[in-house]
């Protein structure tokens, strides 16, 4: 990037503390609630709060006046203020809406850094000289934000991050070199203000709680501790907090340089319904975007495709692109993606608003950066192998369609199936469920190597051959002794046994055909999991791990299920009972046990996963 941090060099201002940078901070109070109100179309004086998890994370001024505070539970907040509007938490919305504030501030100052949505860091030195004084700069900033982004803001200036944030909250300008004294009498929990991420904030809050228990209440008392002891006791967080409390900056601000997104739009003369029509337009639009990027000397790392239907719905998807350096590849690459996406919508296979003819199509290059300053890939450097692999995958995607190649990532969840998020290769990932959350009831490790995409039916029987059930109190009716998998449809013996009167059912051959019972060696459970009990798609199930005994009736059902994915194929090749040999003449008996994960739900058993 061309714009680097403007460091204070020999300007007299920073001689007292050479490691700090003069900064101004623009703070929009209660940003999440301001952004949410604007999106909901409500006026800023509505009593409102943003709810995340179990508590309010931001409260509007009107609600605060009515007695609602941050961190309050929903019920308590509503009892204090019955007309309170509760808005959902959405980090993406906060960040998106804050762009307006950032660009308003950029009309006054050349480069600003978004510390977090709601907080802007501004290099004060040059800008203050330009505007005459820091007071004039602050005034210009507040006016610009009020005019263009239509929200109230507060500006403060000081040396260092923490002092500047506190100064903004108090709307004061701390004279150069006075930041340490300014911070000294403040309580130690002020430190949390300077944390930018949630994880960091938690670490700082822990530090603060320890400090308070040690009898250290102000930043002055904290900085009086010997630096070595602070590091020895609190590690990296302690060192960071000490530098912050002394008004010293950890790093000079990284400036946000405005590069406008490059947009190419196409309006259909008459609404387009056919894929062929779209394919042509997709190619044209992609080439135009490629040309526009080339003309600007830029490349982009993300492309957003927006199509509007004649019902007024808009369909959006973001794609990651890493093809900037390959000549001509970009246009083709993007044309394919536009085409796949539109095909998906028009054919109704992809999720989204109701199918309708398209009226316009826009392709927007986002995260635009100058050519030649490519970012490394997420997983490391740009290497030939990565490029080769990616090209191969794109080729397969061209062959099989968008969902033909998937990338996987781990996410939070309880059952093995829920713990995986699958996305079309190259598609920008939507936020997954957080892994760090506790997920009580999660099936413990080891993770099963085979997870059936769709659970297969299963019979779990007791010693007498009657089905094992789990009741509401998690009582297992009898110890499971036998397990029957669904038989292979091609397995004539199992089909015949199913038809035979001794199988117990009379007339017809409906219902699953069961394979021979497999003896259970050991089992554990049941482990109850009740998910989303408040919603339509609630599930209530009890999991059980069952190890099957190897030997005579070998555990092939699970493996065959695993191999075929949808259960009930390809059992036939293997032996039934003792002494059969497989195709190569090897003895297949005496093969060991597999373990399975079974779930009891709605009165029947399902095979969820196989530990093979």
């Amino acid at each position, binding site marked *: 990037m061309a714009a680097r941090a403007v460091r204070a060099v020999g300007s007299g201002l920073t001689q007292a503390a050479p490691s700090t940078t003069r900064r101004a901070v623009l703070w929009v109070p209660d940003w999440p609630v301001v952004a949410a109100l604007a999106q909901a179309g409500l006026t800023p004086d509505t009593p409102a709060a943003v709810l995340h998890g179990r508590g309010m994370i931001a409260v509007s001024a009107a609600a605060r006046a009515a007695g609602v505070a941050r961190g309050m539970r929903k019920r308590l907040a509503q009892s204090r203020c019955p007309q309170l509007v509760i808005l959902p938490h959405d980090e993406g919305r906060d960040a998106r809406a804050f762009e307006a504030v950032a660009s308003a501030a950029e009309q006054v100052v050349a480069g600003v850094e978004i510390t977090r949505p709601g907080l802007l860091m501004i290099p004060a030195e040059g800008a203050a000289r330009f505007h005459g004084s820091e007071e004039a700069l602050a005034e210009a900033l507040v006016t610009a934000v009020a005019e263009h982004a239509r929200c109230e803001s507060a500006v403060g200036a000081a040396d260092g991050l923490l002092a500047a944030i506190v100064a903004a909250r108090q709307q004061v300008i701390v004279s150069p070199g006075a930041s340490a004294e300014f911070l000294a009498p403040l309580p130690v929990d002020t430190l949390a203000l300077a944390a930018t991420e949630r994880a960091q904030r938690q670490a700082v809050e822990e530090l603060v709680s320890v400090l308070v228990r040690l009898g250290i209440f102000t930043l002055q008392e904290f900085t009086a501790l010997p630096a070595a002891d602070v590091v020895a006791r609190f590690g990296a967080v302690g060192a960071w907090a000490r530098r912050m409390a002394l008004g010293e900056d950890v790093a000079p601000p990284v400036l946000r340089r405005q590069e406008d997104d490059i947009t190419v739009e196409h309006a259909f003369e008459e609404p387009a319904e056919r894929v062929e029509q779209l394919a042509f337009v997709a190619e044209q639009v992609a080439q135009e975007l490629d040309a526009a990027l080339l003309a600007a000397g830029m490349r982009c790392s993300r492309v957003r495709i927006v199509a509007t239907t004649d019902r007024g719905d808009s369909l959006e998807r973001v794609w990651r692109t890493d093809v900037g350096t390959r000549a001509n590849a970009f246009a083709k690459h993007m044309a394919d993606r536009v085409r796949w996406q539109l095909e998906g919508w028009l054919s109704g296979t992809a999720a989204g608003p109701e199918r309708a003819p398209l009226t316009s199509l826009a392709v927007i290059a986002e995260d635009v950066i100058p050519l030649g300053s490519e970012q490394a890939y997420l*997983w490391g450097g740009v290497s030939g*192998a*990565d490029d*080769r*692999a990616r*090209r*191969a*995958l794109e*080729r*397969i995607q061209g*062959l099989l369609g968008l969902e033909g*190649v*998937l*990338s*996987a990532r*781990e996410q939070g969840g309880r059952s*093995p199936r829920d*713990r*995986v998020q*699958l996305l079309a*290769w190259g598609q920008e990932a939507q936020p997954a469920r957080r892994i760090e959350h506790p997920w009580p009831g999660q099936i*413990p*490790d*080891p*993770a*099963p*190597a*085979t*997870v*059936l*995409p769709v659970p297969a039916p299963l019979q779990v029987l007791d010693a007498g051959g009657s089905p094992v059930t789990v009741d509401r109190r998690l009582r297992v009716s009898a*110890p499971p002794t036998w397990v029957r998998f669904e038989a292979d449809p091609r397995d004539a013996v199992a089909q015949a046994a199913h038809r035979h009167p001794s199988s117990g059912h009379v007339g017809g051959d409906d219902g699953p055909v069961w394979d021979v019972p497999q003896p259970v*060696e*050991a*089992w*554990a459970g049941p482990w109850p999991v009740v998910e989303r009990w408040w919603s339509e798609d609630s599930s209530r199930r009890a999991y059980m*791990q069952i*190890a099957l005994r*190897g030997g005579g009736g070998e555990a092939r059902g699970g*493996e065959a299920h*695993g*191999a*075929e*994915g949808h259960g009930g*194929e*390809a059992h036939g090749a*293997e*032996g039934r009972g003792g002494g059969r040999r*497989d*195709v*190569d003449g*090897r003895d*297949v008996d005496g*093969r*060991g*046990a597999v*373990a399975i994960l079974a779930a009891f739900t709605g009165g029947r058993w399902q095979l969820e*996963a196989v*530990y*093979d």
Partner: protein
Amino acid sequence: MFESSATAREARIAAARAALTEVQARIGAEREGGERTPLPLAESLAELLPGGLRRGSVMSVAGSTSLVLALAGEASKEGSWVAIVGMPQVGIVAAARRGIDLGRLALVPHPGAQAATAAAACVDGMDLVVLGHGLALSDADRRRLGARARERGTVLLAAGPAGATAWPGSRVELVVESSHWSGLGAGDGRLRDRDMVVAVRERGRAVRRVTLRLDGERGVWRPGVRGTVLAEEVA
């Protein structure tokens, strides 16, 4: 004059031999012509395949998806790209626990009728390709894929259920002969450790039986417990 040319020739040969010895000393003399460095393999699996995952080779693994994932794990951790073709049921969490880097993992769950083309494209681009059991591949397709893998230096792992026929022309065939889970009781405990006996059939070698322990606690092969060779027999 003849003598002088003969001595010059001998001197040239000696110089060439010296250069060859030096190169052999530098990169190892055992390597045959055209052979590439094998993909890394977890230390605990070294007993299973003393030669490592030879590039360009085809291996069949029957009876354990965990073993397939473990074989691919170390290579993926070291930067190789892995594709899993035709296995919609593979456990991703298990793959991650075995060391596979999900950022360099691509899944082609249902290639359908295009299986041969998709697998060939994977062989071209990836370092290690796992092929599922139910792929629509003819024997000719399989031979072509094997040849392509040999040419590109890609490792093909053909996974199959216990008792499945091996991939024709596979260099090594790993068959899980028995496995035993521990940690479960009668309604208590949970799955923890797993011991398995794997028969290694290598072309032109005696069949070896190796016991391996899968450590459920950490989900990795326990480094201390190396596989032990139980018995060797002539195939």
